[in-house]
């Protein structure tokens, strides 16, 4: 099974070579104070006594050389890091995107598009940064700390214990502060989310707020939230403000202690020399810098692991809908049964009650079937079963004589075309939106579909014609225009079953009638029309009346008026005169 970090396997070379080159730099850096000590202890003496400066400038030049070598080996490491982390991120984004496309709709809706987008952006970024840091710093920072400690022990084991104390104390303080502040940060983040919610609420409700003259209350509500935010972030700031003073305290106290405890040995000229004292202090500064880096790393990796957790959860999700069917759809003669429901029940994964119960009906090829029912009667869920977005909990859906799940998933999807309740256009052009339904559609086919959806006229009035730009969410089209474009898209795709799920809501009755007449001519195509308006369905060959997830009755308009009380009630509610 794939996991967030699985893609690292493609970057073994970078993961091994990168840190190795980094280690070279560490070795160079750690040897510098040794050379400096040599200059102070021997170079100066030699120069004073023999007028020979070579013991000063030769080690000096070696340090410079090491600097340059260290620089280049770091660059090699950085290069590996950038290749591996970006490549890793790219692969992970592809994996997530693909995973989401294949999720069960129910799972995807439960997670929510915002959170999914967050995963593919923020979480992947954090993981990507963690890979870069893994190569660049994870080995470097601790090895500088450990290396400096070892060097200190080599120079003078007694004073090295001060080093050990510094490392332990600073690590402890940093971890403690990270722990405290990360808890506080969670609180702050929650309040910030509330602030975002309030802002967005207030923007979306501008008209309502103003008709109720509630602007001042909104502002007051918002100010309360920002006040809360301030109080919380103040605490987090105080916690964070402790880091610098405390580390300064420890380091400077350590320097004073080192000077004090080394004094007797230096004076007695037994053991520690003054050059070694300077190198000890250099090591101490290096430890401090490295520890700061380590504390940043702790933050980066804590975040990355939270992200890893989320991404793993997503990648772990398995689709319940089997897509392993192999049957290829065959052609069917007219008036043969194309779709049958046999005792179909459906329950959402976490629901207690069935959403659909005991559905039985048969649809013949070429028929027009209407489905009607109030809000929450299960009409749209029924469609999602036909579309194989969901699978029935029990019972069978038979398509052209075979169970629907035995078909090759992609082949089956080619035969079923749905126009959804919500008119959604993706950013691009009119043409690119229609082509989503049929990748190889010619301009002629597109224009025909537009004509049949009564959309041709307004499209031709646009400056770009079928190449007119569609902005995000199709904002540059009116609701009615969007709906007609979606219907055109559905028509373009339809070659066996066309389902219209309440797709006329933004159209006036004249346009609706025009489209219906066009559809009527497509006698080869089976049409399923869902609507709340009886007028949209009354001419159907068969009307299915749904009520609370069950089929109330099936029949023609005329039959239903006689046998279904519910249908009659709906009909009367829509036509009665007062």
């Amino acid at each position, binding site marked *: 099974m794939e996991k967030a970090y699985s893609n690292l396997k493609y970057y073994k070379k970078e993961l091994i070579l990168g840190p190795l080159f980094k280690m070279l730099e560490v070795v160079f850096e750690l040897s510098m104070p040794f050379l400096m000590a040599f200059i102070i202890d021997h170079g100066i003496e030699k120069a004073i006594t023999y007028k020979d400066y070579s013991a000063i400038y030769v080690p000096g030049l070696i340090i410079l050389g090491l600097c340059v070598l260290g620089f280049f080996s770091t660059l090699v490491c950085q290069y590996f890091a950038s290749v591996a982390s970006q490549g890793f*991120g790219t692969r992970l984004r592809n994996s997530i995107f693909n995973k989401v496309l294949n999720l069960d709709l129910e799972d995807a809706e439960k997670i929510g598009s915002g959170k999914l987008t967050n995963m593919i952006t923020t979480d992947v970024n954090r993981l990507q940064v963690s890979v870069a840091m893994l190569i660049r710093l994870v080995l470097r920072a601790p090895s500088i700390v450990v290396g400096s400690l070892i060097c200190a022990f080599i120079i003078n084991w007694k004073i090295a214990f001060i080093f050990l104390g510094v490392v332990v104390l600073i690590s402890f303080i940093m971890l403690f502060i990270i722990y405290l502040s990360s808890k506080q940060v969670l609180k702050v983040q929650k309040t910030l989310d509330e602030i975002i919610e309030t802002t967005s609420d207030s923007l979306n409700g501008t008209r309502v707020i103003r008709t109720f003259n509630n602007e001042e209350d909104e502002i007051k509500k918002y100010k309360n939230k920002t006040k809360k935010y301030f109080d919380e972030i103040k605490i987090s700031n105080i916690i964070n403000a402790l880091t610098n003073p405390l580390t300064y305290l420890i380091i400077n106290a350590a320097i004073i202690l080192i000077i004090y405890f080394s004094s007797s040995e230096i004076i007695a000229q037994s053991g520690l020399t003054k050059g070694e004292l300077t190198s000890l202090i250099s090591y101490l500064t290096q430890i401090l810098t490295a520890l700061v880096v380590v504390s940043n790393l702790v933050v980066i990796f804590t975040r990355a692991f939270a992200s890893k957790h989320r991404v793993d959860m997503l990648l772990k999700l398995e689709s319940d809908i089997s897509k392993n069917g192999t049957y290829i759809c065959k052609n069917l003669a007219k008036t043969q049964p194309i779709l049958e429901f046999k005792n179909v029940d459906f329950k959402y994964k976490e629901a207690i009650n069935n959403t659909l119960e005991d559905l039985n009906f048969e649809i013949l090829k070429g028929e027009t079937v209407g489905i009607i029912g109030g809000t929450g009667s299960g009409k749209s869920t029924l469609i999602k079963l036909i579309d194989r977005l969901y699978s029935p909990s029990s019972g069978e859906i038979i398509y052209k004589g075979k169970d629907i799940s035995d078909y090759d998933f992609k082949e089956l999807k080619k035969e079923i075309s749905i126009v959804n309740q919500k008119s959604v256009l993706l950013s691009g052009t009119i043409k690119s939106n229609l082509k989503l339904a049929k990748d190889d559609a010619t301009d002629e086919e597109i224009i025909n579909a537009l004509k049949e959806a009564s959309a041709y006229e307004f499209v031709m009035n646009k400056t770009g014609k079928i190449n007119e730009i569609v902005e995000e969410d199709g904002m540059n089209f009116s609701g009615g225009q969007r709906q007609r474009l979606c219907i055109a898209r559905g028509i373009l795709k339809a070659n066996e079953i066309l389902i219209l799920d309440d797709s006329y809501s933004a159209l006036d009755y004249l346009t609706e009638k025009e489209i219906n007449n066009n559809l009527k001519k497509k006698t080869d195509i089976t049409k399923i029309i869902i609507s709340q308006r009886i007028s949209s369905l009354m001419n159907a060959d068969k009307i299915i009346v749904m009520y609370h997830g069950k089929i109330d009755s099936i029949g023609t308009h005329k039959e239903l008026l006689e046998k279904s009380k519910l249908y009659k009630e709906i009909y009367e509610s829509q036509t009665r005169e007062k």
Partner: protein
Amino acid sequence: MKNIKLLFPYLSKHKISLIASLIFAIIFDVSLVLLPLTNAKMIDAITSLIGTSNSLSDTDFFKYLIISIIFVALVLVFNFLFETMVNTVVEKINVELRNDVFEKINKVSVKYIDSHNHGDLVSRCVTDTENINNALISSFRQMFQGIVVLLATLIIMFIYNWILASVVLILIPFGFVLSYFVAKNSNKNFKKQANINGLLSGKALETFKNLDLVNSLNSGEKIFGDYSKVNDELNIVGQKAQFVSSFTNPTTRLVNNSTYAIVGVVASVLCVVSADSSNILLGASCTVGTILAFIQYSNQFAKPFNEISSCISEIQTGLSSLERIKEIFDADFDIDNGNEEISKNAKIIEFCKVFFGYDKEKLIINDFNLDIKQGQKVSLVGPTGCGKTTIINLLLRFYDPANGEIKVDGKSLSDIKKSSLRESFGMVLQDTWIFNGTVFENIAYGKKDATIEEVEAIAKEINIYNFIKRLPNGFDTKISDKSGLSIGEKQLICIARVALMKPDMMILDEATSNIDTRNEIKISEAFNKMMEGKTSIVIAHRLSTIKNSDLIIVMNKGSIIEIGNHKELLQKNGFYASLYNAQYSN
């Protein structure tokens, strides 16, 4: 840059805190800079004892030890005070800025809100203020701490040893120039990366929002192909950006380490030279203590330079955010200079030769004339885009007409106080608005002092009591726009909200189009009861909803083409009749 003026009032409000933090910075920075000096003195005291039989107490060692300890204590206290103070002040400014932006957003014209992407406005309120916050913190740090450290270090270095000071002064800025070029180069790459990144997340969000569609259309593979193409592009650009930007740290380390080597060598040579007393004229005597001090000083001196590139990029981000915020502050306030009040119960609405267009070239409302008498139930009918909703926008003064006059209660709209005008209308729109809060809070939104009994009574009156009682916590259930209520259910709550207000006039803009017809009848009955004898304007698709209106206005392309009641219009056999017949023909 000139946008910075925007921040002056906020900064000057916190003058005292800012000056205090500057003083704190000076105290702790100077102590920090003096510490290596006292350490050097201690080491010199020790080395002076080599080969002698004196003890430490015969030297200045303990004097400097105590001074060092005092400095350490000063650093501890004042660094803490500085950090706390600066962060708190900036956070306070952040909050004030956010409050002001939010307040402004509630007071700009509705046109401004309509014509701006809401996601973008939210990010201005939240992300951009945060960016300004970061820029302020980092520039205060750099200004107060960085500059003070720089100056103090420079002065002390030159007093202490001018030759070594000159070496440091020449070498460190050299590193700064190097890292500046790196930063400049990587900025270019980052901009490119940010653009592609935006495109990529946009694609992801769009797809994830519409998974049902993508699934139904079976176009997953095609969409994935598009996505991975852009993703590959990001890989190339991102790798370059990351690699170039990762030069910064090694470059500064290169310069700092080289400085370390050069300072060490030069200082050692100076030690040798100053050992020969005839050369002391140079005025730059040198000891082991000096070497140590200068190694530390070169580090301290380099630090502000190393940090300046990240500081500059934060300031740049902050400045562009400031510009985005300024745009909001510069937006026009909603004009509200009328001062007349609408009297209770006299409810006449007149439209007189009204012209209007959202943009000036395209008229949406074209010579619209209408008299609505007291107590009339008026319906607006017509194809999408004919201007029905625009009439409501004009009536409630969300927009002002380009020409012509609208009167309510005999007074011109521009003379009426907006609050008084809007108070007299109850409005239910097609787009429902549910805010984060309980059902009770959502219903009682217009009536602060409403009791739970009142809210329950209104819920019963419009037949939604049972539906609410079935929610997990009844009236106390937390709801939001995304909390899983269906559009119809949300609409019912919005209707209850208006019903509770018992307004004098009522506007329903497609208010019941998402509610199934059986429920709609029940609600309509409640409405009718509520609106008895009161003026109302209804926009609806379903002609059944409007058949019993006193007056039906049929609109097309911004003007009235037919007017009359249901019967009259059917007899006329015009546009309305054809609409009606299309709906009910067999």
